[in-house]
C-alpha cells in the first residue's frame, strides 16, 4: 500500500510496543488544541449538565450538584485524529455511568448524542460510554480543566479519537437511532476507533 518516500527517515522516539495506535505520534508534553468554534465564555451559574432523550428520569445537574456526585478519575493515553497521542494524562470528574444510572436509560436507548454549549455535537453508541469507558471531567492533572481544552467540563471517551470527547459538554441525549454529529457530517468517521484507524468516512 504505502510507497516509500524518497529520503524519508523519520524521527522515531523509543516506544513501548503496542502503546501508539497506527499512524499516531507521541506529542510529548504538548497538548495541541483543536476545535472549530470560538472558545466560549463560561459562567458556572449558567452551566448545567442534562441527560435526556430515552431515559426514565430526564435529569439536570448544576455545577455544584455534579461535583457532589461520586468522583472518578481516568489515567491513561489520549489520541487525536490529527495524529498526535498524549501519554499518561490524568482527568478527574464523574463516570458517565453515574449520570446514566440517575437518569435510567429505557430499553430502546442505543446511541447517545453529546451537545456542547457552542452547539457542537458528537455521536456515540451507548456501549462506548458505559461500563467505565467514559467520563464527564473538570480537572486535568488535579487542576481545573483549561477553557481551551474544554473547561470547565468536557466529555472524555479516551478509547476513541478525541473529537468524540466533546468540549464544553452540556447535554447527553439518548437515542434509539444513530444521529451523526458535527465532525461526523463533516467527513470524519462515525465511530473513530484509533486502533482501527477510523479517521475519515470510508475508513
Amino acid at each position, binding site marked *: 500500500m504505502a510507497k*516509500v518516500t524518497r529520503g*524519508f527517515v523519520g524521527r522515531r522516539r523509543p516506544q513501548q510496543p503496542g502503546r501508539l495506535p497506527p499512524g499516531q505520534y507521541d506529542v510529548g508534553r504538548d497538548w495541541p488544541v*483543536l476545535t472549530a468554534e*470560538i472558545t466560549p465564555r463560561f459562567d458556572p451559574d449558567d452551566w448545567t449538565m442534562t441527560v435526556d432523550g430515552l431515559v426514565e428520569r430526564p435529569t439536570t445537574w448544576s455545577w455544584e450538584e455534579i461535583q457532589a456526585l461520586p468522583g472518578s478519575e481516568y489515567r491513561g493515553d489520549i489520541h487525536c485524529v490529527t495524529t498526535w497521542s498524549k501519554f499518561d494524562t490524568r482527568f478527574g470528574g464523574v463516570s458517565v455511568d453515574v449520570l446514566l444510572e440517575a437518569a435510567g436509560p429505557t430499553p430502546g436507548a442505543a446511541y447517545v448524542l453529546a451537545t456542547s454549549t457552542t*452547539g457542537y455535537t458528537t455521536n456515540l453508541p451507548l456501549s462506548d460510554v458505559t461500563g467505565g469507558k467514559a467520563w464527564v471531567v473538570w480537572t486535568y492533572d488535579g487542576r481545573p480543566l483549561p477553557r481551551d481544552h474544554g473547561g470547565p467540563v468536557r466529555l472524555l471517551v479516551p478509547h476513541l479519537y478525541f473529537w468524540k470527547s466533546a468540549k464544553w459538554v452540556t447535554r447527553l441525549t439518548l437515542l434509539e437511532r444513530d444521529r451523526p454529529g458535527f465532525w461526523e457530517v463533516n467527513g470524519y468517521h462515525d465511530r473513530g476507533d484509533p486502533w482501527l484507524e477510523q479517521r475519515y468516512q470510508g475508513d
Partner: protein
Amino acid sequence: MDTPAITETGEAPSGGWCTGVVREVRHPNPDAVLLRLEVDGRTQHLPGQHYVFRLTAEDGYTASRSYSVASSPADPLLEFYVERLDDGEVSTHLADVVEPGDELELRGPIGGWFVWDGSAPAVGVAGGTGLVPLVAMLRHARDLGRPDLISVVVSARTRAELPYPDELGDQTVLLTREALDGRAAGRLAAADLAPVLDRSPGAAVYVCGSAGFAAAAGDLLMDLGVPAGLVRVERFGPTG
C-alpha cells in the same frame, strides 16, 4: 449562553489517497517551503480544506500531518505553504529533502467546516501561516471576479515572515515585532478588526492560526459583538 456556533451540516467534497508529483519547490523564507503538486484526477477542493501528507520510511514507518491548500480550485496544481519547524518530522522533510519530481502520498481534500465556496461575503483573520487557507479563498474570489467578497486581516511577526506578501493587495497586515505603515509593532487588536468587520456586516468570519492566536482573536471578535455562530475557527498546534 453563547449562540450555538456550529450546527450546520457540511457539503464539502472529500477525496481519498492519491499520489502527488512535486512540480515546484520554493523557499519564500528560511522557515517555510512552498510546494506545488500535480495530482492526476484529483477531487476538486473548496478553499479552506486540507490534505494529509503521509511520509513512509524504508522500514514502513510512517508520519502524517495535515496542511491547508493554498491554491484556488481553478489552479491546475495543488499548492501548499508549510512552515518549517526545527523539531518537526514532516515539515523538515518537506522543506529540506523534497525535490521536483518526487512523489508524495496525499489524502484529501478533507474538512467540511472551515470552507468557503465564494457564495457569500467573508472575513478572514489569520496569524502567521494561518493565512494559507485564506490565500486559497482570496485567489478563489479573484477567479470568480469577486475580489470584493473577502477581506483579510493577517498578523505576522515580521515582514520577512509574512506569507504571500505579494497577494495581499490592500488587505490589512499587522506585524507584532515591526512597525508597518504607521502602525506600531503589536499584537492583533480590536482596532485592527473593527474597520474590516464594519465593511462586511453579517459576514462569516474565518479565524486560522495557532491556538494562542485563535483564542485571542475569538475573544476580540466576541468583544466586538460578532455572534459566535458566524465564526469558524481552525487552530493548529506544534505538530511538525
